[in-house]
């Protein structure tokens, strides 16, 4: 493979822009109740911020930000959050994924509001972890690119 040339502008800009992309991604996830957005979109943007640093600084350096071994476990954790929300509402007396039975205070609409938030966080985690893991898997065999 070609030798990597460290370009100051590329590494500086990507390092500066990445946190802002993450902030906006979190806004998209947590503001999904009131504006267009949600777990899938926000998770994709989180993965974009992580992959941007991977492309610009190289996978070796990006391990400091998000290690290669975290992608698949985080994705599984997101799916577990989703299924867990369903099972908690089932254990508390409702149907599977009936958020009205979640053990939180307030009237049922607010339970559903909170349940949707849990779901979106789980979806965002899963999408971020899996997309980053797929990028890392594609680099397998070229660990220093």
């Amino acid at each position, binding site marked *: 493979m070609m030798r990597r040339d460290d370009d100051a502008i590329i590494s500086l800009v990507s390092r500066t822009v990445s946190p802002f992309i993450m902030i906006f991604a979190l806004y998209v996830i947590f503001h999904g109740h*009131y504006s267009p957005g*949600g777990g899938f979109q926000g998770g994709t943007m989180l993965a974009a911020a992580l992959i941007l640093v991977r492309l610009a600084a190289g996978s070796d350096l990006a391990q400091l930000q998000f290690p290669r071994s975290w992608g698949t476990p985080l*994705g599984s954790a997101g799916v577990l959050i989703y299924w867990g929300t369903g099972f908690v509402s089932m254990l508390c007396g409702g149907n599977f994924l009936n958020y009205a039975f979640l053990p939180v205070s307030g009237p049922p609409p607010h339970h559903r509001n909170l349940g949707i938030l849990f779901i*979106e966080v789980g979806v965002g985690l899963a999408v971020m972890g899996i997309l980053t893991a797929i990028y890392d898997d594609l680099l*397998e065999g070229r660990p220093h690119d």
Partner: protein
Amino acid sequence: MKAVNYAVLALFGAVLILAGLSLPDRGDPTAPLNRDKSAAGTPNAPSYYIRNPERDAATPNMVTVILADYRGFDTMGEETVILTAGLNCFLILRRERTKEKRR
């Protein structure tokens, strides 16, 4: 053989265009999808989804409510599909570390 393929393709496209021409207009209030009651007299899902998300889930964005609450099972399946795709990439593309060391 290629001419036959293109002929079948053109025929299929013509059928699709014909079917598309007979679809109801967007937002047509008399279309079966947009009626308040279905032909069997039961409430239609779309009008319910448009009227009630604020009351049911205290959430103004009806798309989010449909995606995560009314159609929660569907989204759960989508997420599981994403996880399965990631795990398949993991299984196909990852190599065993021990073999690389031996080389």
